[in-house]
């Protein structure tokens, strides 16, 4: 049996809005090298940007040099992206799905991530930051 080799790219950027675009472009480059099609790359771009936006808006302690991290791990069949910060975290139970009949300005981010990715895990503890791990498969949607 051939062992699938894992390729890992690690990225760390300042907790500032202008770096979300940088993360999106890095992701595009990695995903297209791996062989994802345009539609899946678009899905991942939005999902990752949502996670980055959260890290910047909710995750940061607003220290002057606050940063957050994005890890990309690929093997032959999937790309796993983890976005994590060491900010204030939150209680996961408090995050609710949006009511699509009564749209609000906020609260769409995590719902969008879950809709666009094949698998999503969220870990957080108050005071200990947040980590969103999301997976997209190369093959047909599952």
């Amino acid at each position, binding site marked *: 049996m051939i062992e699938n080799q894992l390729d890992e790219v690690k990225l760390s950027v300042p907790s500032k809005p202008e770096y979300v675009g940088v993360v*999106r472009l890095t992701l595009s480059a990695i995903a297209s090298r791996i062989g994802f099609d345009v539609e899946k790359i678009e899905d991942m771009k*939005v999902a990752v940007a*949502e996670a980055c936006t959260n890290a910047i808006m909710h995750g940061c302690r607003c220290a002057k040099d606050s940063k957050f991290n994005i890890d990309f791990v690929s093997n032959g069949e999937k790309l796993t992206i983890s976005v994590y910060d060491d900010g204030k975290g939150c209680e996961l139970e408090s995050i609710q799905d949006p009511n699509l009949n009564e749209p609000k300005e906020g609260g769409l981010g995590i719902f969008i991530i879950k809709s666009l990715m094949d698998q999503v895990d969220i870990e957080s503890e108050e005071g200990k930051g947040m980590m969103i791990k999301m997976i997209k498969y190369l093959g047909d949607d599952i």
Partner: protein
Amino acid sequence: MSLQVKKSYNSENKYWYVELSGEVDVYTAGQLKDAFTNMIEDKKENIKINAQDLEYIDSTGLGILIGTLKRLKEKDKNIILTNIRSNVKKLLNITGLDKIFIIEE
């Protein structure tokens, strides 16, 4: 990685016409919000958005559209979106916003 907002007021038919091109994300969202706020404060009329060159939008941008629509609804006005790209369309479907805004093909 930037956003252009081109707006004009059609006084004959009383609506705002807005061409968006580029990307709406947490970095460029402020620019979009300011544009809509200025428009609404000037004239609270329908806003027609040509999204042909809107390559990317995420929840930050959608939130601004929702907030703008809420203010328009006070006077029974709407947001009309035209020429939407498939990736943007997908997001509107997922979030149910395609039923809140008026989508013209």
